[in-house]
């Protein structure tokens, strides 16, 4: 097992290297010069010397391979360079926003799990009744409703019914947990609902499948309580595919964060990402894409590990 973990971790390096090469090259084959585009974006008049000066300052006058090598060398030392927009170190810009986005991501995952597992199990138990149909409708709607719109509707509902709006300035969990929760639970709901949709459907079909197994019949024949059968025997075995889906759908979560932070005016990684693209802040965009891909790949790896840990039948070589 230890060997397997090590191998997977090492395999991440070439993948991430590939991502880095791809992003680096893509942003440089872009039509037009980065510095000129940046000035064009701001609408300010820029003399030729100023552009040249900035190019030299950003190291854009050097050959492509040199730029790449120095960028990669920086990453190896955890130095992602400076933002082309603010001029501050990227590590600093990212780290002040990471807490918010991570907390939101964790909360949204909890919302998704709390929604999908009970609802999916319920739908499976009451298969082909109105309960089942409503749950299926609820989950298929979750896939169709954009999380940013759900966010707007939540805000709208509060405004109209309670004349209240979730606070717009971020309070850290460590400063005031209650205020923090009151602010972040709503975007977490908006993201989590969509995130839960596929997992609910997966739970339903997994439970249905497990309920037909021999050991469930045996448990019933023993005269066990239905509740024990469901929780200890059926649900426990049905959880495996659900966990996979929650891991695989992690991309939804990232997409959800990008748009939902915008709605709730949360200054997180998603907001930073959109801003850096709008401002053509290439160094920041590069770093964020690399960060997101890393998290994405790492989560997939974690899911595989949890999978093996939960199911003793699975042994990775």
């Amino acid at each position, binding site marked *: 097992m230890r060997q397997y973990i090590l191998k997977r971790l090492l395999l991440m390096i070439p993948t991430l290297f*590939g991502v880095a090469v791809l992003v680096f090259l893509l942003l440089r084959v872009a039509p037009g010069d980065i510095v000129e585009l940046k000035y064009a974006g701001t609408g300010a008049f820029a003399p030729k010397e100023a552009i040249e000066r900035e190019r030299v300052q950003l190291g854009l006058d050097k050959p492509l391979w040199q730029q790449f090598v120095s960028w990669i060398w920086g990453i190896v030392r955890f130095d992602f360079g400076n933002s082309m927009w603010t001029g501050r170190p990227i590590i600093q810009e990212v780290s002040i926003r990471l807490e918010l986005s991570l907390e939101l991501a964790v909360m949204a995952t909890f919302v998704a799990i709390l929604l999908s597992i009970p609802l999916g199990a319920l739908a499976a138990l009451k298969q082909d009744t109105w309960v089942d149909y409503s749950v299926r409708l609820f989950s298929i709607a979750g*896939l169709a409703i954009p999380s940013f719109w759900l966010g*707007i*509707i939540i805000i*709208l509902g509060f*405004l109209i019914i309670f004349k209240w709006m979730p606070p717009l300035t971020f309070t850290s969990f460590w400063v005031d947990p209650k205020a923090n929760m009151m602010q972040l639970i709503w975007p977490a709901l908006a993201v989590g609902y969509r995130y839960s949709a596929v997992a609910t459907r997966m739970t339903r079909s997994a439970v249905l499948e497990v309920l037909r197994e021999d050991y469930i019949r045996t448990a019933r024949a023993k005269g066990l309580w239905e509740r024990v059968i469901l929780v200890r025997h059926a649900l426990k075995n049905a959880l495996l595919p659900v966990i996979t889906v929650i891991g695989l759908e992690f991309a939804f979560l990232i997409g959800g964060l990008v*748009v939902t932070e915008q709605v709730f005016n949360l200054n997180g990684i998603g907001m930073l990402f*959109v801003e850096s*693209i709008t401002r053509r802040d290439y160094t920041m965009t590069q770093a964020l894409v690399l960060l*997101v891909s890393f998290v994405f790949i790492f989560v997939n790896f974690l899911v595989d590990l949890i999978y093996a840990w939960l199911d003793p039948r699975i042994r990775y070589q």
Partner: protein
Amino acid sequence: MANEISVRTGAYPFTTRVQGWLEASLRFVRQRPLGAAGAAIIFIMALSALLADVISPYDPLRNNYAAMLQAPGALHWFGTDSFGRDVLSRILYGSRTALLIGFASSFFGTTLGAILGVSSAYFGRKVDLIIQRFMDLLLSFPLIVLALVVVAIFGTGTTNVILAITVPMIPRSALVVRSSALSLRQMPFIDAARALGFSHRRIIFRHMLPNVMAPYLILLTAFLGQAILLEASLSFLGLGVAEPIAAWGLMLRGAAVEFAERAPWMAIFPGLAISLSVFAFNLFGDSLRDALDPKLRVS
């Protein structure tokens, strides 16, 4: 040439083909009412996109400062926005944007992916390895992140949005199509085509691609809903189509949130349009998948 006759449907008279289609459609409606409902919504949406010029009560782009933020009523069924533009007209025209971008990007994405997937399976070995590694690389970006990267490179605007949504679809389509093309590669008729000395291109396009039609169609419909949602998200972020084009995501941007309390209709109707259309495509896609591929059916 003998091996091609069986593939051609043109050998049947026209009326039989129409009857066959009608029967198949009727069977689809009877057996999968939900999918048929989805198809009906898609049909209405397509109709309103086609006839937007005729059925829209107002010009979707004309500002009317005498009628700003008006509540839904007899004159403006869905109300007006902060520029006095008619929300209903903008939604009708918005279905044009959504369908155009949705269809174009999922068509290009699925088709390019299918060609890559089939080629990958057909050539095998090195070609397969290179294509697969590259697809894996693209798959290590979440959908929206890759789309945003493309926007970062080429900028916003309708064509670039189509490109931005097409690119992340390609590896997802290639992956699925390759796996069904792999078994196809072992079929005797491919060997026969090779023995007849047909070119690689001909075998790929005329012999293999037509046989992965089922997964191709399933992917195409599954991507349609996602593409519409992605377009709406990009436009909402200000990184999609540009004002003043009528697009649902764009309608939810800025003023819709700013005036949420005073003019909730500005936020409600475009969102409903997005949700309903994605819902319809998902319903239709799911039913189509069940109908075309019994193996994929879940419980």
